């Protein structure tokens, strides 16, 4: 009798485990497939990319990745609808994206960390109002500020400049940096900093010798999200850049659906473009929820 019950329980457990794995596999396939297909397409020749029915088995080629950076200027121009400076390949877009991302993140991180520390530790008058205001900029639709900024930039000469784009991205990522870093600073026990004050460190030293080392992991996560944010931004890059400063997303979006374009090459460019995200998803996994909610929800174990 007991044996029978054990058997039944055991069988039910096997069924449950099978179901779990089956659903997990289906879920993973659903969410990973487009990315897989993108990478797969980047390894196909033009003819293979166009095959009907779609090709599941083929001999991969790295030709597309080489072509991105070699002098296939006319083809890149044709595909992306962008006129290129002199004899460059698509690397110019990556270079632009890199410059803009790196600079704006450096500035946003420094300014954001300082402000976050102040909000977290000293809670100066108006902190909650300011924090709420900063958060509300997350809800602000980009298109609403896009109109005035477009005209400002035109009249101030910031249009089609690195500095203009960097300034803009710094600003748009500042709220995130502040909220995120504040949530990490909030977790540093006050006693540790007070102990350092009593031990003879002034507030400036307490900040960089005691507080900052406690939030290094959080700082890394914050920077990771900032990279994604800036790297992925499209609307302002579209409105505010021209040949000299075009970033990757604008180039990719320029690939209009003309017949006969080389999807393999586009897929290769896109693969390179989303590569940082594919790497960062593994590093940021633990902080994903926290990052996507500005640090207000602390996340999954």
């Amino acid at each position, binding site marked *: 009798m007991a044996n029978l019950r054990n058997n039944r329980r055991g069988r039910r457990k096997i069924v449950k485990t099978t179901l779990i794995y089956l659903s997990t596999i289906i879920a993973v396939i659903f969410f990973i497939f487009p990315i897989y297909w993108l990478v797969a397409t980047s390894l196909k020749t033009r003819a293979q990319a166009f095959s009907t029915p779609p090709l599941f088995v083929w001999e991969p080629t790295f030709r597309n990745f080489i072509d991105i950076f070699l002098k296939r200027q006319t083809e890149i121009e044709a595909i992306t609808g962008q006129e290129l400076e002199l004899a460059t390949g698509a690397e110019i877009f990556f270079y632009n994206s890199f410059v803009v991302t790196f600079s704006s993140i450096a500035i946003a991180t420094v300014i954001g960390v300082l402000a976050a520390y102040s909000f977290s530790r000293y809670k100066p008058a108006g902190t909650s109002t300011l924090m709420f205001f900063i958060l509300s900029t997350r809800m602000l639709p980009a298109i609403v500020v896009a109109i005035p900024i477009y005209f400002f930039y035109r009249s101030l000469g910031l249009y089609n400049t690195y500095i203009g784009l960097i300034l803009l991205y710094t600003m748009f990522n500042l709220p995130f940096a502040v909220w995120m870093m504040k949530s990490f600073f909030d977790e540093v026990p006050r*006693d*540790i900093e007070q*102990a350092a*004050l*009593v*031990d*003879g*460190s*002034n507030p400036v030293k307490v900040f960089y010798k005691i507080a900052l*080392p406690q939030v290094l992991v959080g700082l890394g996560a914050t920077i990771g999200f900032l990279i994604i944010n800036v790297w992925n931004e499209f609307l302002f890059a579209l409105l505010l850049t021209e040949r000299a400063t075009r970033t990757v997303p604008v180039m990719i979006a320029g690939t209009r659906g003309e017949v006969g374009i080389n999807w393999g090459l586009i897929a290769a460019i896109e693969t390179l473009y989303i590569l940082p995200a594919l790497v960062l998803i593994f590093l940021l996994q633990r902080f994903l929820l926290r990052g996507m909610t500005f640090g207000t929800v602390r996340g999954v174990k």
Partner: protein
Amino acid sequence: MTRVEIRGLKKSFGPVQALRGINLEVESGALVALLGPTGAGKTTLLKCIAGVEEPDAGDILFDGQSVLGTPAWRRDVAMFFQTYALYPHMSVYDNIAYPLRERKWSRQEIDRSVKNVAEKLRIAHLLDRKDPSTLSGGEMQRVALARTLVRNPRIFLLDEPISNLDAKLREEMRTEFKRLHKELKQTIIYATPDFLEAFAIAEKVAVIKDGVILQYDTPINLLRRPKNRFVATFIGSPTINIMRGVVRRMAYGWEFSTSSLRIQLSDVGHYSKLLDGSEVELAVRPRDIVLEGPKNRNTFKAKVVAAERLGYETIVTLSLGDVELKAVTKGMRSYKYGDEVIINIPGDRVILFDVSSGEAMY
């Protein structure tokens, strides 16, 4: 050697009043204990003295000079934090050396002092440990203590420095503190929720509750002449017995009576505030109740309700009509439930409290 004066100190955190007018004087070189339950304001008071919290009102003086304008990092006090507050990213050695490095001591001096204090606190073997969070609670506490004691400040502030140690180590550390104080001859303010610890260490004890100092006195006075019901009940174990009744002026002096017993009070001339026929609370310490002593005016028959044998002494819970009392008697005595015993309540050892204010009536 610094004399500390605190005048009318107030501090609120939002709606919570942590300190509501603290007055305290600590003589130069004295060891004073701050005794009070959790949330009484001990930590806040120490932090105000250290300068890491800014009081809303009042003044703090070191040797007669206000230090409110002096920021914490120039106040030259050392503080032990109840949470230990070890720097998680530094090794044990660096933690202890931190205050000395911030004071630009020479490398050799630092090394000598760190090793010296580590030796004293028996943590020399831990100095190389990289990550303080891997230490046990007792080890962390001693590292934090070492960081506090490594330098020679004007004042030591110790916030429950031994509360989390096990009983044996705690006892050792109590003795250690007394010795340390004799050696250093420094002003020490020592916060603790444990009256035994306070009594063992300090010459004077300030009992603090709800942000107010209720009584600042010697241990013996706190025990014998508490100013109010809270001090009387907070100090002493088992807790002081309290019963409610009425006082009457008799020919021979004052008499306290409940429905089931009458106690004649030995009037030593200090019951000046007493009104005939008023309701009061009478308190008597369990150790003052004499079991099976010679008969006198205040001898009563009581029934044993329970007895806890603790080795050197036995705590007996007694019922006397409608009141229940605890008494302590020496040795291992075996009482059974329902046994009848004779007890004496010494009329000169009782304390009377006003029912409404809880103030002692001397």
